[in-house]
């Protein structure tokens, strides 16, 4: 067990909230916590009152009386970045990361934006900082994918492919199992909270593509930088029930598969055997790594959710020196 760290958690949604909730269990102290309009900042190293801040967030929508900026400049060891993923400049996440690294603090990302859209910039800032950047939670939620690739060494991993979006996988597997149309399953998924009101990011393949972009960046070890614009992306909105039926008649099914190699990224609906490892059902995620000396590795589990993602974040915190 590593030494307890002082955490500043920026973002008070499903992920940030769970990190604050679980940090003590992992031996860490939350010294600052911010949402988009407020912050709670501890007066000393004993940290903030996590339960009180979470209650206040639930009741009043704010986490404290301080300014969000105060959290970024608090006395922490690790900044946990859990604000919304954005494309292009990856803000506000990127500036948060920059502020922490320039102060020689570590950064653990749940936010995919900085490592998907500005990987080179992130690594440049890290090079000039005593702080490190880790981002296990950005790919596959609870599943330890980035750290497994690190353990194997990226140069020994030739490809990563998998099911990296639970919403799209839920929709495809329900369509196949129930013989119902995309629109109906989407409505059901929204009722269950599996799909967001605006599911575009998930069903158009963007979210899966961002995760593959991150994996491609890890695999290429700085030889080449990838962003979303390098990815060949197709979503599931054009997959009708009739296609799933034809696939099933032949012992196959359709899954939204993402592939990442040093040469590029491809995300799209693909035919896979019904009994294949990749044919996971529901919101489950799976990643298959092709290695030079260790064959194929399959890692599967929960790809999203507050506590699941927080467990990956806190795992990263534990890996920091």
């Amino acid at each position, binding site marked *: 067990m590593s030494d307890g760290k002082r955490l500043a958690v920026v973002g008070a949604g499903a992920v940030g909230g769970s990190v604050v909730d679980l940090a003590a269990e992992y031996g860490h102290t939350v010294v600052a916590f911010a949402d988009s309009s407020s912050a709670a900042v501890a007066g000393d190293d004993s940290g903030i009152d996590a339960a009180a801040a979470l209650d206040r967030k639930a009741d009043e929508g704010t986490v404290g009386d301080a300014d969000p900026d105060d959290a970024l400049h608090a006395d922490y060891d690790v900044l946990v970045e859990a604000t919304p993923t954005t494309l292009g400049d990856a803000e506000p996440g990127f500036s948060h990361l920059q502020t922490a690294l320039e102060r020689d603090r570590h950064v653990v990302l749940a936010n995919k934006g900085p490592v998907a859209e500005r990987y080179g910039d992130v690594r440049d800032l890290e090079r000039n900082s005593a702080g490190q950047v880790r981002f296990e939670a950005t790919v596959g939620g609870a599943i330890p994918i980035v750290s497994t690739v690190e353990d194997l060494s990226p140069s020994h991993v030739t490809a990563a*492919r998998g099911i990296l979006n639970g919403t799209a996988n839920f929709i495809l597997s329900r369509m196949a199992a129930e013989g119902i149309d995309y629109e109906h399953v989407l409505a059901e998924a929204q009722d269950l909270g599996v799909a967001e009101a605006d599911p575009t990011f998930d069903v158009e393949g963007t979210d899966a593509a961002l995760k593959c972009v991150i994996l491609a960046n890890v695999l290429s070890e700085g030889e080449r930088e990838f962003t979303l614009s390098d990815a060949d992306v197709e979503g599931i909105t*054009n*997959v*009708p029930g009739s296609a799933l039926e*034809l696939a099933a008649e032949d012992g196959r099914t359709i899954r939204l*598969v993402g592939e990442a190699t040093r040469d590029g990224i491809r995300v799209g609906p*693909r*035919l896979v055997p019904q009994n294949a*490892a990749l044919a996971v059902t529901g919101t489950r995620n799976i990643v298959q790594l092709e290695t030079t000396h260790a064959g*194929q590795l399959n890692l599967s589990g929960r790809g999203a959710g507050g506590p699941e993602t927080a467990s990956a974040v806190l795992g990263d915190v534990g890996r920091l020196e």
Partner: protein
Amino acid sequence: MTSALNSESETDAESDDRTRSQSCGSRGDSDVDTGADGQPQPHTIRLELPDQPGQLLAALEPISDNGGNLLSIFHERGNVTPRGRIPVEVDVEATPDRFDAIVSALRDGGVNVVQAGAEHYAEEVVVLLVGHLVDTDLSDTLRRIEQCPAASIADFSLNAPEGRTDTSSARLRIATRAGATAEALEMVSDIAEEKELHVVEPLTGGAA
């Protein structure tokens, strides 16, 4: 690209070339090996030749050397394989024994014979096509896939629940020659793109 071949080609090959230059291979494969045993029959041999002078001539020599009767030569101008080779189709009349000897001699001479007579396709790949399949001339789609030397449609299934004018799906099992799966998939996706259809490709190469 094809100048080296052109310089060697016969005039009748030239004119055939013109009429067939649009297709990705052609000529049915079904009419081979149907004659009585031991009788000369027509055979189709498909070759892929490097785009270099002398290659076609070198490739044809073993045919007459082994008692084959050259019926026709087609090379597909502007149609280059992904490996930069030029597909050439040769129709030969020979007895089954002599035909086998011709193919062996071609291969021994280093000629890349991609299909000879009733040679079996080695690999199979299943793809789905989704979209306005009927409105975009389904039979043309299938014919064009079938015409490609790399591929042959082994099985086809259409699912059009909304009737033939709406979005429908089709499953194609395509037999391809050894190592040509990627080429066949690329060809299908080119045709699909042109017709604004969606392709659901399989994961290939040990994945899944």
